[in-house]
């Protein structure tokens, strides 16, 4: 049976992991390769590096990080953040990334999704959608620039469109739930997952294993992204998977 995936996300700035990971006796908690290796050993199913490097001059540091990681870690690696062109994608894949995650650039230039999926295959094109609830009704709007700007798109319609443009997966973040640790937005995840026939990775709001359980069952997510729940050692990936397995969810132990 196809397993539900647990995907830790690391924020990488200027080639270093930020939001220190303060457990597991790391020699260097800022070294992306070391952190990635440890998560891989813990049975993480994939890894995401979110590049938050601000300065243009340092943009290429991520390529070096990806190269070094791909020499040591043999599970799928997705890189997101600041990807704007086919050339950016080509360089990341060539360095050893398995997938790239497009966000703002995909909205501003829809053709990028189509071109990238035609050239490199849908399987390596993830489109990240940042969603914010409009009202109390079950409607969500797409935001860009890290959730600062509304672009006047309906999340469900945009999800369908990115699938038609050739995206292989959707990384769906609830801006309302993100950072709350109160759980994922179940209604949002379910609405998107029932609309598209590509994988949906739920993101935003994980604070405990039961949150992952709910979004994978009620929310119908195919995978979950989580950051702080794992980074600060509150729960290990192994414990979390054991918890999910005991509740009848197919996971790779």
């Amino acid at each position: 049976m196809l397993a539900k995936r647990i995907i830790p996300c690391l924020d990488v700035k200027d080639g270093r992991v930020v939001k220190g990971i303060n457990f597991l006796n790391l020699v260097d908690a800022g070294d992306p390769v070391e952190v990635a290796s440890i998560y891989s050993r813990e049975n993480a199913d994939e890894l995401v590096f979110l590049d938050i490097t601000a300065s243009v001059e340092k943009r290429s540091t991520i390529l070096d990080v990806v190269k070094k990681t791909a020499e040591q870690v043999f599970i799928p690696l997705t890189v997101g953040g600041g990807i704007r062109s086919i050339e950016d994608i080509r360089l990341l894949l060539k360095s050893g990334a398995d997938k790239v995650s497009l966000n703002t650039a995909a909205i501003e230039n829809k053709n990028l999704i189509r071109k990238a999926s035609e050239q490199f295959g849908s399987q390596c094109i993830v489109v990240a959608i940042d969603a914010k609830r409009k009202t109390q009704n079950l409607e969500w709007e797409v935001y860009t620039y890290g959730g600062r700007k509304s672009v006047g798109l309906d999340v469900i319609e945009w999800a369908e469109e990115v699938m038609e443009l050739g995206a292989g997966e959707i990384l769906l973040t609830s801006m309302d739930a993100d950072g709350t640790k109160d759980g994922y937005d179940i209604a949002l995840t379910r609405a998107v997952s029932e609309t598209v026939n590509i994988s949906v990775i739920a993101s935003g709001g994980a604070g405990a294993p039961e949150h992952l359980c709910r979004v994978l069952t009620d929310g119908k997510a195919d995978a979950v992204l989580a950051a702080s729940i794992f980074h600060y050692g509150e729960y290990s990936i192994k414990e979390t998977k054991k918890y999910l397995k005991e509740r009848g969810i197919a996971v790779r132990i």
Partner: protein
Amino acid sequence: MIAVIDYGLGNLRSVSKAVEKLGVEVDVTDSPERIEKANGIILPGVGAFHVGMQNLKRLNLLSVLHETISKGTPFLGICLGFQILFSQSEEHGICNGMDIINGKVKRFTHDLKIPHMGWNQVKFKTQNSKSKIFNEVSDNSYFYFVHSYYAEPEDQNVIIAKTEYGHEFTSAINKGNVWGVQFHPEKSGDIGLNVLRSFLSLC
């Protein structure tokens, strides 16, 4: 030396890095001379079947691949490199493959999410069928898959293992010195490296 065939389709770096990690010399190449001299051949690949076949033809690699396979060089096809071993694919119309394995490559037609992406279980047909490259792998182990098409061999005897996605499909085959796996051993963590190590030990 192991030749990883460079035919212009993705994930070469992951495969070659995995082989290097296992301490074996690797040559990522499109040179027929280099391929002929190799102790083992890996045909990786992510992408479209017809593009893969076109590229192999354009680079004049089909005959050297057929020759090295017939002279007994161990050969491993991964994902698209596995599907290309078959007679034909129905991806983008009908496209002929290398025809090393009789059978067809078909699209998943059921109402499931496509691509079939993620970790899924590999079930061996029988313990004996596990064959050399899966010696140390237990039944129902998880491997990483990414594909929208699956291969259907005519001869059931070549099937080593199957995997369930909507229905059962063939996830590993062996015929003589030729192995093929639908999943990505180079992306399947330690267990994937284990399969690669077992293949390399035959080379």
